[in-house]
């Protein structure tokens, strides 16, 4: 029935085993459960490797804006990495680079140790604005990437059905995207990305515009899908609690220039809830580091030296 064996629930003894994270110390919520992570912890065979990438944009007044400055980051296969940072620090830029939609000014993006030079269906980005195609029906949207890949019609149809069922949207296959709610559109984007069966899923503030209930629901669904499909996920958000709720690891990006300021490993047991005390405690620690960056971002945006929100 299932079109791809890789999609079978695969709990095969990896880090997603709940037993792994059940560290009693953190459960009590007494001590902060996030621990600063040193680069030395990283493995030698990363799925995605950002090797000293910098990117500067040309601004309208002819100057150059250094959006990303010498970013080094390794993402392990099957890892759920969250990236947080204030608005305008270069989070979207970073994902666009990994997706191959943009080239770094210096440094390189490596995927399985091979340099990335163009978009490829081994990495699919879910845009902040989703980027669903309004001229296509929901099913056709999900089918799009497979069509571009040249899969047979029968296989495409089978996979469309499979992934729509996965995100609970089967009965909306023939609707147009404007007929769906925000949360449903988000799930269409997810199904469309998953259907091309990428190794790496890149998500850009996917749940920022949703109401709390829908967001909680989608957190659960995303965590389930991640566990079932074994994909590597790089998830960008400006919401620290969301990052702790979902991530194995959280990377904090600073504002202008965008550098990796610090990395945190999240050792809380899954499934987690946004309201968990332990999640809040972890978030507090990251927020303290983040606050300075947010101030910088606000001052830049409003030109006000006195902002201390």
């Amino acid at each position, binding site marked *: 029935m299932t079109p791809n064996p890789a999609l079978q629930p695969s709990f095969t003894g990896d880090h997603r085993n709940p037993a792994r994270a059940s560290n009693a110390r953190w459960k009590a919520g007494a001590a902060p459960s996030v621990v600063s992570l040193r680069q030395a912890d990283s493995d030698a065979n990363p799925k995605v490797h950002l090797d000293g990438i910098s990117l500067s944009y040309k601004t309208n007044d002819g100057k150059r804006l250094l959006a990303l400055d010498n970013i080094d980051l390794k993402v392990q296969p099957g890892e759920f990495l969250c990236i947080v940072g204030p608005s305008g620090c270069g989070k979207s830029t970073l994902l666009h680079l990994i997706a191959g939609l943009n080239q770094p000014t210096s440094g390189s993006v490596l995927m399985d140790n091979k340099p990335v030079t163009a*978009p490829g269906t081994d990495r*699919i980005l879910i*845009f902040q604005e989703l*980027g669903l*195609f*309004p*001229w296509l029906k929901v099913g056709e949207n999900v089918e799009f*990437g497979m069509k*571009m890949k040249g899969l047979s019609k029968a296989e495409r149809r089978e996979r469309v059905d499979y992934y729509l069922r996965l995100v609970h949207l089967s009965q909306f296959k023939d609707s147009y995207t404007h007929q769906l709610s925000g949360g449903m559109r988000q799930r269409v984007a997810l199904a469309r990305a998953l259907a*091309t069966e990428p190794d790496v899923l890149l998500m850009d503030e996917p749940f920022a515009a949703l109401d709390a209930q829908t967001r909680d629901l989608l957190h659960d669904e995303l965590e389930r899908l991640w566990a079932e499909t074994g994909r590597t996920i790089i998830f960008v958000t400006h919401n620290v609690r969301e990052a702790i709720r979902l991530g194995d690891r959280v990377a904090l990006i600073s504002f202008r220039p965008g550098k990796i300021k610090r990395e945190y490993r999240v050792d809380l047991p899954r499934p987690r809830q946004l309201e968990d005390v332990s999640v809040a405690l972890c978030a507090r620690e990251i927020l303290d580091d983040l606050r300075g960056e947010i101030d910088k971002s606000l001052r830049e945006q409003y030109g006000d030296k006195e902002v201390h929100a």
Partner: protein
Amino acid sequence: MRKFARHAVFYAVLIGIWALLGALKIWPTYVFPTPKGVGEALYAGFQDHSFWIAIAVSMKRMLLGYSLSVVLGMVLGLGVASNKFLEETMGGLLVSLQSLPSICWLPLAVLWFGLTEKAILFVVVMGSLLSVTIAMEDGRKQMPKIHSMAGRNLGATGLKLFWYVLLPASLPFILNGLKQGWAFAWRSLISGEMIFVSLGLGQQLMMGRDLNDMNLVIAVMLLIIAIGYIVDGLVFRTAERSLQRRWGLEPAS
């Protein structure tokens, strides 16, 4: 249905006034034809197939010329929109060229192609090419950038990207231009056929003049209006409505 009834009443009254004026015999019928005379001319024209042939010839020229200018216009428009230098220079030139009535190209066309079918096609293409090009250029610029990024992200490149993403994504922005292009092409064709006699509806019109047959002249004019109306209503309105339904746009007006 009510809308249809209102239309029916309106046209019935219009024809009634016309018939009344005709019946009063203020002017001789060779100056002011009656509805009956025009009706007979229409009937006769379709009976002896001369109208069918004229319509077929004109439509064939339209389809050829218009498709040519749509394809050319899309390539040109995309090219112009994708290059800043071209946009500044060509963009301005295109707009200024648009003020030239396309029939002005006929002398040039005759010199280049002689009194051939090509000359007529040239005039039709020149009539609509500019509006299609300008529409495409505008559409490409108005089209949200996210669509092309999403397309590339999902593995679309080159021709596939154009056909499956850029074209449908810009369609709502170019449809009006395509429609305008059709209207310009239609006018250019009829003017061309009137001057450059070789079958077609324009020639039928001139034949009416040569024969002093006012009924024929009016009948052909009605045909030209009807065809323009049918194409607009059937083809472009349908396309517009289907776009609005798909994209979830509010219907215009």
